[in-house]
Every structure is written in C-alpha cells, then in structure tokens.
C-alpha cells in the first residue's frame, strides 16, 4: 500500500492534502541524500540519483514513498522527554529573578522570558536594513511551548501548550493562507488578524554579531513570518523557538540513522547521548529532547532495525503526570480540567498525538488554577505545569532482513564545553579560547587550538 504523509495529528488543515504530502516527501528525500552523502564522503548536492538508488536500501532510515514498508512493521512511540527545558534548569538559580513563592531559583520566570537567545547574539533586519524586534519564547526549546492567559485579577485563567512546528504553519500559509488566518484568529481571539499581518513584508534575516557566523534567512518577502507577534501575544498558535521545527525532528531522526565511528575506527556505542549528538551534529546537545531522540534512533540502528518516522509525522504532547496536579483538598485533578484542542488520544500511554492542550477549570468549577498545586507547589507559573508534561514522536520499524547495522561513517564533528559551565557547542574539532574539547577522539586531530566553534542544530 502506498505510503501517505498525513498532516500532524491527522489534522485536516490543508485543502489539498497532497501539498503536505509533497512537502514531507521532499524532506524525506533530502534526508536520504544527506545520509548517502555522508556515506560517500561527498557534499549532498554532489550525490547522484544513481548513488541514492544504490545506497538507500542499505540505510537504516527509509524514505517510505520510495521503499515499501513491510506489512509487519511496528509503530512505536519513542520514550517521551520532559517538556521543561533542560537548559533553564541547568542555569538555575537565575540571578535576574530573585526568590519568590513557587519559584525560588527563578526557573519558572526565566523560562517564560521572551527574546532572541534562540538565535544567539545579533539582530533581525529586513531587506531594507531596518532592525526588527522579533522576540519569541526563546528558552522553551523542548518542542513544547506554552502561554498563560491572565484572568485580569493577577491570576491565570488558562494555560495553553502547543507542540506544532512553525514550519508546518509556514507551509500551510503558503498553500492556504486563509486557514492560517482563521486559526490565528481563533487561537488569539483577535478577529481582525489578516494574512498581511502574518507575512514578512520584506525579507527577514538574522545577522549575527560574530562576523564569522553566517546570516540566516527567516522569511522571504511575502512568506509566513514564524516570529510574528500574534503568536506571542495575546495568544499562542504554534511553536516559535528557532529549534522547535518539525524539520529539525526529521533531520535529527535521519542523521541519527547512521552508525558512527570515532577517529580510531571504533564504533560509537551511543551510551552517552551528548557524545552521540556531538558526533552526528544532528541537534542541540544542551536539550533533553535532541540527545534523547538521537540516542533512541541510534539504538534502532544498533539493533539492526530499519525505520522511518511514523505517519503522521509530528511532535506530540505525550502525556501528563496526573498525580502531580491536585485540587485544594489534595485530591487528584479531574481530567475535565484538560482539553485537547488539536490532536487526539491524550490519555492512553504511548498513543497520544496531541498538538494543542489547554488546562482550565471546567464549567461549574469554583476552584481556580491558582488554587491548584502542581509538583507540590501552588500553581503560579505555567512552567510548573510544563514540568508535568512530556513530548514524544513515533517511528515505524522493522528488522533488516539481512541483518547488520548498515554503513558506518565517521563523526561529523564533536563538541567543546564552555569553561566553567556545562554548555556544549558544536565544533569540527577545534575549540576556541574559553572552551575545552568535551569529547576527544571523535574526529581526527581534535584539539584546543583557537578556532571559532560552530552552532549545532537545524536553522
């Protein structure tokens, strides 16, 4: 049976589902091309169609519209990761946020901060040179973002969580801008939003202060602006952090599909998830999500599996630690407080494909969100609830009929650790001043000579 790429969560946003199908086919093709390039030691653009054809069946990652998925293939959810950013916890206590009730180390305020840290140090500007202020939820980087709706009395009336990539909305906007406008109007409550307010009037580019780093196009003129202000305030429609794209997930699952060897030729065992992701440079090593996704994909490779991201490809809220939310009398919070707005199947382990989730008092309930306890503390910050949420994705896998683990290639790079911190930054082997090689032996000649490190992740 022909493989179909449905929209995440089986949503029906696209008037012509073939538009999304084509987008996903293109991405899957690109992943295979990248993988074959890695095997052959070429640049992806230099890989020929014949080479792709010759090698694709040996890869662990499968482009499912080019190769048939066996009838006995198994679809599983990978182990969920925590929705609260690891980077925020690691940097606590936050000096900028002095101790207050329910947030003594400042993490819950730091995580709700808006800014451009997801891009680094620099600025956005349009093609006319005008500097743009485009802050997003720049610390919510575990493929989960959220927003609290104020109740007008200093409290919170609703908390909304989303796991939908901004690139999905960009593609939808390209094909069905009216649908995106409707979604924005609905989820922000601003009925006057029009398409022009969501698009980049002129091309938007990120310009890093460090001239050795490359600039990055955010949106071309007329395209969807993923950092538009309506997604930040007064509502939340989709993920906004630079690293929270569906494409990042696909890329990561793909580049993790090759067994990797260290400089001395020994195959990486994948036990250290940070080391693995520094080797394959598929994502951000300072998160929970990317290292964990990469490690689990790699374990499929090691286990002799072939796999693809399961249909519908998406990032999903995996579940809620229900036991950690309680009513004022200490009893568990009834499920009626949760509303699945987009997606489905929240309450069955390993099946959830929830994309948008709300927490609010059900009709007739006298208790307010501020009366609840979560993780032991009074609910004052939405990030407290985010700690009770997890995120996951699905893969479809099957054993290689001939056994083996497929091609083994060298590491694409390594990581340097910024001195005095636990922060890892990607490197091709050299570490700049103020940083130290974190994983010696991954690439030949890795050393600590001064050289600008590169940033990891999909931009």
């Amino acid at each position, binding site marked *: 049976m022909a493989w179909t790429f449905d929209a995440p969560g089986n949503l029906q946003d696209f008037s012509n589902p073939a538009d999304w199908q084509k987008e996903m086919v293109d991405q899957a093709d690109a992943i295979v091309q990248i993988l074959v390039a890695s095997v052959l030691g070429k640049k992806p653009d230099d890989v020929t169609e014949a080479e792709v054809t010759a090698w694709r069946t040996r890869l662990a990652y499968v482009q499912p519209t080019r190769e048939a998925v066996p009838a006995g293939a198994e679809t599983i959810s990978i182990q*969920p990761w925590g929705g609260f950013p690891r980077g925020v916890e690691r940097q606590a206590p936050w000096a900028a946020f002095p101790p207050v009730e329910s947030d003594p180390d400042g993490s819950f305020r730091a995580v709700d901060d808006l800014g451009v840290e997801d891009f680094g140090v620099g600025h956005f500007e349009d093609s006319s040179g005008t500097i743009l202020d485009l802050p997003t939820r720049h610390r919510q980087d575990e493929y989960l973002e959220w927003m609290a709706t104020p109740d007008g009395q200093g409290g919170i009336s609703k908390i909304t969580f989303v796991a939908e990539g901004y690139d999905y909305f960009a593609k939808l906007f390209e094909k069905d801008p009216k649908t995106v406008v409707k979604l924005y109007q609905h989820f922000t409550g601003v009925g006057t939003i029009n398409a022009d307010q969501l698009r980049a009037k002129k091309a938007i580019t990120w310009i890093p202060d460090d001239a050795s780093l490359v600039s990055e196009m955010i949106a071309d003129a007329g395209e969807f602006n993923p950092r538009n202000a309506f997604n930040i305030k007064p509502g939340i429609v989709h993920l906004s952090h630079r690293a929270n794209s569906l494409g990042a997930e696909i890329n990561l699952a793909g580049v993790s599909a090759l067994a990797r060897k260290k400089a001395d030729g020994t195959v990486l065992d994948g036990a250290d998830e940070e080391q693995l992701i520094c080797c394959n440079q598929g994502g951000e090593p300072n998160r929970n999500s990317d290292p964990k996704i990469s490690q689990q994909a790699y374990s499929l490779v090691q286990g002799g599996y072939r796999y693809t991201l399961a249909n519908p490809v998406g990032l999903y809220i995996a579940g809620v630690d229900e036991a950690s939310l309680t009513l004022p009398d200490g009893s568990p919070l009834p499920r009626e407080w949760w509303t699945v707005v987009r997606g489905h199947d929240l309450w069955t382990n390993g099946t959830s494909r929830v994309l948008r989730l709300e927490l609010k008092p059900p009709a007739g309930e006298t208790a307010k969100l501020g009366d609840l306890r979560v993780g032991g503390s009074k609910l004052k910050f939405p990030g407290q609830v985010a700690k009770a949420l997890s995120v996951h994705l699905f893969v479809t896998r099957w054993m290689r009929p001939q056994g083996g683990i497929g091609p083994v290639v060298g590491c694409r790079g390594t990581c340097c650790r910024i001195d005095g911190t636990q922060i890892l930054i990607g490197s091709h082997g050299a570490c700049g001043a103020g940083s130290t090689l974190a994983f010696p032996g991954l690439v030949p000649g890795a050393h600590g000579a001064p050289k600008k490190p590169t940033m990891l992740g999909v931009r």
Partner: protein
Amino acid sequence: MSDRALVLDDIQGDILAGFNTDVQALVGLTAPDDAGRRTAAAWLASLAPEITSVARVRAERDVMKTPPAGEPPLTWLAVAVGPALLQAAARDVFILDDAFNEGMPDRAASALADRSLPAQWMVGAPSAPLDILLKIAGNDATAVEARRDTLVKAAKAKGLTAPYQEVGARLADNAEHFGFRDGISQPDVLGDQSATGLSPGNFVFGYPKAPGVAPPRRAVDPRNLTDNGSLLVFRRLAQDVPAFRAFCADQIKSLQPEWPGLGAPELAALIVGRWPSGAPAVQPQTADPGVLGDDPDNSFDFRTDDGSGCPFGAHIRKVNPRKGPADVVDVPRILRRGIPFGPTFEAAPAAERGLLFLAYQASITGGFEFISGHWMNSSNRPGPGDDVFIGRPFDTRSLAIPHAGRSVTVSTGGRQWIDPTGGGYLFAPGKAGLAALATVPAPLAKFAAPLLLAKATGGARRWISRATRPLRLAFDARRR
C-alpha cells in the same frame, strides 16, 4: 578550574559515608514557638563538636564494627533542622528549595501522590512540626538508646518536646521488610573515595554539580552557614507485608493461563527489579541466582534491555534508568540512608513495620521529589509502566511484563502495601554551620520590622512573607 576539595571533617558523616550501623534511633523534636526555636538552635550549636563528621566515620568504621575489648561501644550522631527553626535562628539565611521551605505536609499530596492525612501522621504532623531530627547510630542498642536518652533529656531541658522517637534496626542480609536487600545502589561521589562519581554539588552545598563548573547557589546565605550542608528527606513508610505477598500470590494464580509456572518470588522480583539477594532480576530467570561475595552487582545498565529482561516499570528502573530510556539527560541521584523499623513479619505478625526512609541531596525538588513525583508516580517516565511496588500507593497501578512474545499485565486494582505515616524535609548543616546557629546575624534588626508586619497581616505563614522581604532588604543594604 580546580574544584574544591571536600571538607570531610565538617560535612556530617551520615551524608557521604553513611552510618550504616545496626541500630539507629531517630528523635523528632518540636519547639513551642520561634523563641523556643532560637533556644533550641543555641543548644544545637553547642552540640556541634559532638556531631559525627565524614572523616570521623571513616576513621572509626572498623572500631564501630569491632569494638576493642573493654572499650564502651561507639555511637555516632547526626542532626538536621526544619525550616521554621532555620528561619527563626538565622533570618538572613534562605535555602532556595521550595520543598524545604514549604514542608512535606503541604506538598505531599501533589509532589508525592500521598493521599494520607498529614494531621494523622505519626511524625511531622502540622501540630508537631519537625524542628529537629536527631539520628543516633551504633551497633549496640543499649549504647544508642542511652545516648538518645541523654540528648532527649537535654532537649527537654531547653523547652523542646520529643513527640517522635523510634529505633530502626537492620534486618538480616540488609533486607527491607518485603525481603529484598536494600541500599545497594548508591551514587559514588567524586572526590570522596571516587575519581569517577557524581560531583559533590549534587548532594552537598558549596560544591560544583559537574567538574569545573561553579557551585550553584543553593541559598541566600551571607554568612555561609549552609556550606557543607545537605537537604534531608525523612519519610516513615509502613509496609504491609502480608498484603504484598497476597497480591503476588493472587496475581500468579490469575496469570497461570498466560504464564504457566510463574512463581510469586519471580513475580515479586520482576516488580522490584532485583531478587531478594540483590541480584538483578533478568528474564528468563525463575529463581534467585544469589550474589557472589558480599555485594550484589551494581555495575549493570539497561542500555540494551528493551524491557524484555527487566520490565520498564520495575521499581529499580523507575528510580534509576541506568542508561536505558529516560526523559531527561541529567539523571538525579540521592544518597539513601534509611533503615527498617519494627520486627519482621515472621517474628511478630501483628506488629507495625516499615522503612525509615532517609535521603540526602542538594535539592529536594530536583532530587527526591523529582524521582518520586516524575518517575515513581508516572506511568510514562522515565520509561513506560507504573512502579507497582511503591509508586502512587493509593491508586491502581499496572505493570507490563514481556513474556513469551506478548505482554502480561499485572494490576494492583487499588490494593496497597505501603502506607506513608509522616516525615519531613530538613537541612543537615555542616558542623561549622551548626555552630553558627548560635550567632545572631548582624542585620537582624533591619529584618524585624517587615517580619512583624508580615505576621500582623497574616502573611507570615508563607515563606515568601517570612524570608523574601527581609532578603530584599539585605540586598538593598549591600547595594548601598
């Protein structure tokens, strides 16, 4: 950056070395009010020289095990203080941990899924808060009890009451009451007889959490009073041995069609993740393989175990994923120092028994509460499945066990065998910090007015009113 060496003669011995003695007496002391707490703090400060350090435990371990003929039996002493006492005695000190500041009674339902009523707790009930917890340890019960009595008498002379006293005793083979060897898996601490362990800042204030990293600020503490201290979780857990045994017996009967020949010991081992001897439970074992030598294997990991060897929901996988599937990269660990209480079921079936769970860490919210709330009580973190053994004791839990190519499910149906009966969150200061409790902080006068104001307006109950306002004044003072 060179990391600071551990100050082993200041850090309390039970934290890093573990007393691990045959007998351990716990005493919970309560002061009548803040004035009483300050009096108590001064008394505790005078005890500082008596507190047993890590260095002393290490130096005396052999003597503790084998007392020289004619010498009186050794005893060791540890102490921890509750938030109310710390705030009364050291108003300039504020530990940045919600759990410690709010206390176990207010948080237990949400953080621990503990549906027991704190008002009925045997220890740590709101009516008798744990201002001080003493732990007196030794291998001679008479000596332990004698020292305990001396301390209790001295405490009472200072106006304290002792609403909680209990003696824990090691069972044969270091087992807990369900029969499983306990306390096997303890994290190594870097710099404390280990070159590869976790950095001490995961357990002790004033040290890095990772090599080369600056120590995290665990407290607002201008006098460095919390240095070398650690946060202590104490939880009294009653164990219903016949209930657990009956559950396993009933389950194997109902599972016979799916799993012929399954024995209750095998099922219990898969629920725990270890056999009674401490040997890791790995299918298809059907009997306890025992352990070689004194110590069970603790070197294994679950990196290649997809749940078919040891179920994902097995207790030991829920509290320590050991490189298997997990939801976080940074795996929290705690130093467990618990001991059973009560006679064995075989010795006195009608008696109460259980575990005096004690654990040290640098963050309760990031340590014990994370492991309990996010892992033991979760059905999908760090791996799939409920911790049938201990997780969410008042709810129905289920555990999937792979067998013969399919999944066999064990469900509790709401049956219970763990009953939380109290506890508390405390701080175990270093010896120098304990001694400093007797010193009134210089800026105290500046804090008095807002504190009185907060109390007058009813805001004093919450720590934000007690501590944050004064602290901000302190910051303002420094800026000036």
